[in-house]
């Protein structure tokens, strides 16, 4: 076999006394797509950072073209042709595409910028990845997938021989993902070595040549992707069987309507939405990213300005103007964006946990002991894994952050929980825990609305699904009507089935 472009040999990594990587072997070869998978906290990110030169290994060797090397900084890594694309994009939002691509190594003619050449080169790089944005477009005006493409174009402009992508598809829609995967294939054919992580196993199976599976800082499986199937991967990641990912559904049609929304409008995002929610059910809210699902629910929860003809909550007509109104009435919204809206990353777990319900912890003064007790409970109940209690929340893995966020929202004891993308970017084991938790809530007679862009999740979890399209509710599906095809048709503006037979919400 050819000499790998970049490889790790028996690499270990410790942070203080905590050993996070044990004897990792990994080889990236030219023209090969390598998938690195594992639960959150398995050590994928650290492995990638060592490969890209962001962090040095504690033990073991890093080999570039078969020769031992050591990157003093990520700049040396980049100089060697190794480029890492982060999950959170590394683009300056207020600069143009062209300015971003040449940021830090602008082409000059004498003392002045050579804008013409930068523009033509940018155009070439963008064409190369079949991205149709203008070089002078502001990055802030681009969609997530376009930003992803710009990142790849930027990597190309640095003559990347090794491209490392941290969950490149986590924030992309299905269509955007397809475009990205096409580009990955094209790059591979040109001889780039590619490493990527993903929680979507179908993607891994579809595109990677080699897969390395990590668990708790060890490589537990490595080999050609063709030799394993998705079930095998999931099993190796979690270390147990996950065939029953979704808990059993509710007991059939419930009767008590706990929430009835008529004519809810969130200016600029959603118009005239009407739907009902029953006790003991999980209502799925599907649709494309950008259809206004999040905004509609935030409007309902008082987080953004909204108007409604009538909202009936537990049989009482209510007006919800602020999130506190909603919370007082037992309605809580769990944000999709745990890092920017959900948690204060530079705070500890205790203060984050109680921020939303401080009024419960002491009257005039905060009762720290009660807070600590609540944290103990949350850690136990939600199985939060953290190195120590003092750890800053930003240092927790995504799955543990999500569990903490869920614990925080649950402290306000909602009777109706709106969970927006409750499992985005977290590992399959934690996903399963969250599914079980949501189902347990409904078993207690509470009601849950789940917004999800993951089709299997929506179908596996929800008793009933409403689909949103361009700010409108496009239709409702329940029971046997719930099929991937029907959801996609509704999100695309078609009827759920060729023949009629759907219930249009808001038709009354």
């Amino acid at each position, binding site marked *: 076999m050819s000499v790998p472009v970049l490889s790790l040999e028996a690499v270990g990594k410790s942070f203080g006394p905590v050993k996070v990587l044990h004897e990792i072997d990994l080889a990236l070869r030219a023209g090969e797509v390598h998938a690195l998978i594992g639960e959150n906290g398995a050590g994928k990110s650290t492995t990638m950072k060592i490969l890209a030169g962001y962090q040095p290994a504690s033990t073991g060797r890093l080999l570039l073209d078969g020769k031992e090397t050591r990157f003093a900084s990520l700049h040396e890594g980049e100089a060697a042709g190794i480029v890492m694309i982060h999950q959170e994009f590394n683009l300056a939002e207020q600069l143009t595409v062209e300015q971003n691509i040449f940021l830090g190594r602008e082409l000059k003619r004498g003392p002045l910028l050579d804008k013409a050449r930068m523009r033509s080169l940018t155009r070439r790089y963008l064409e190369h990845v079949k991205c149709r944005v203008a070089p002078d477009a502001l990055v802030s005006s681009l969609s997530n997938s376009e930003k992803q493409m710009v990142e790849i174009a930027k990597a190309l402009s640095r003559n990347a021989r090794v491209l490392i992508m941290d969950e490149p598809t986590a924030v992309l829609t299905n269509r955007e993902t397809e475009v990205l995967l096409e580009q990955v294939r094209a790059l591979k054919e040109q001889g780039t070595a590619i490493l990527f992580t993903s929680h979507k196993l179908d993607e891994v199976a579809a595109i990677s040549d080699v897969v390395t599976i990590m668990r708790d800082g060890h490589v537990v499986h490595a080999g050609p992707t063709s030799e394993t199937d998705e079930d095998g991967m999931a099993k190796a990641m979690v270390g147990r069987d996950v065939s029953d990912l979704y808990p059993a559904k509710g007991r059939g049609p419930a009767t008590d309507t706990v929430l009835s929304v008529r004519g809810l409008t969130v200016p600029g995002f959603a118009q005239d939405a009407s739907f009902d929610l029953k006790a003991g059910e999980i209502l799925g809210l599907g649709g494309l990213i950008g259809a206004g699902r999040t905004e509609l629910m935030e409007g309902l929860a008082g987080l953004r300005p909204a108007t409604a003809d009538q909202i009936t909550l537990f049989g009482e007509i209510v007006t919800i103007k602020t999130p506190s109104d909603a919370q007082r009435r037992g309605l809580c919204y769990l944000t999709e964006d745990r890092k*920017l809206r959900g948690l204060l990353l530079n705070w500890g777990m205790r203060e984050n946990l109680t*921020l939303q319900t401080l009024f419960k912890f002491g009257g005039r003064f*905060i009762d720290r002991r009660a807070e600590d007790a609540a944290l103990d409970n949350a850690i136990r109940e939600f199985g939060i894994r953290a190195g120590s209690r003092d750890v800053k929340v930003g240092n927790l893995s995504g799955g543990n952050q999500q569990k903490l966020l869920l614990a925080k929202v649950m402290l306000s004891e909602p009777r109706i929980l709106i969970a927006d993308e409750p499992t985005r970017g977290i590992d399959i084991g934690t996903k399963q825990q969250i599914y079980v938790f949501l189902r347990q809530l409904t078993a207690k007679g509470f009601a849950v609305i789940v917004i999800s862009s993951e089709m299997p999740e929506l179908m596996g979890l929800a008793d009933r699904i409403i689909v949103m399209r361009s700010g409108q509710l496009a239709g409702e599906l329940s029971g046997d009507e719930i099929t991937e095809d029907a959801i996609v048709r509704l999100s695309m503006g078609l009827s759920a089935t060729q023949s009629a037979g759907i219930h249009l919400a808001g038709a009354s």
Partner: protein
Amino acid sequence: MTDTTLPAPTRRLPSMAVLGPLLALIVLIVIGALMNPNFLSGANITNVLARSAFIGIIAVGMTFVITAGGLDLSVGSMAAFIAGLMILVMNAALPSMGVGVPIILLGMAVALLAGTLAGMLNGFLITTLGIEAFIVTLGSMGIYRSLITWLANGGTLSLGFELRTFYRPVYFDGVLGVSWPIIVFALVVIIGEIIMTRTAFGRHCAATGSNEHVAHYSNVNVNRTRLLTYAALGMLVGVATIMYVPRLGSASASTGVLWELEAIAAVIIGGTVLKGGFGRVWGTVIGVLILSLIDNILNLTDFVSPYLNGAIQGVIIILAVILQRERKAAQ
């Protein structure tokens, strides 16, 4: 899940960012004591503390504003304006009320009310109208400075002689040898510290300054929290003015000049993060003391010219921010 027991919170040594200002203060006291035997005399200490009190009271309010992610440049001008207003009202009421406790109380009420309203106005423009705090308070700084100049007709507003004599003890007298400004300063600090560390409001301030989106999604009323910090700061400017007016009995266009910068500097030296999200009231007290001790030491010794006071303060402010950055880098 697997093992979920966590080690109990560990007690570690406070970081350099916590100890730094404290050490600097101790070093200053030692230097002062070595250079001039009068430095540690009761009279000098009282003098330093009483002079620190005005800036200190304001700086405690500023700690809250900055912690919640704001800034207020108008406090110096606001203090001058409130002082002028207070003097005008008291002088106007003198013929009808005569010299006595009621007229002093009237003056105090005017100061507190004017301060609170002025702070609320800043807060309203910043939160409800969503204008940058720097711009709003830069504007109101100019407005109040100009108003006091206009009220004083370019000169000085003075309390009537008898009133001044009657009001003087509020600055110069005290309880058990501790003068009133020091007592009030201490009370403001204690209350401020408790509010910052022990109440929901203090934590909401820090949450708002740390990330206002997270605060909003955690049902914290971000605008109300910010508005309250500005209102509290305005009220504390009123309190400081109440203590300040009896000292000279007058107000002019040069009253309170640069107080805003001294207050902000004290807050930053004390370890509060300028971008918000973390505030330390007792740190602010140390910051205030450091600034006034430098001034005091330079005046008591002829080692360095007192004219260099500003330069030394400047160096200390920059050093404090470098310390903050080191702490960030260490994380």
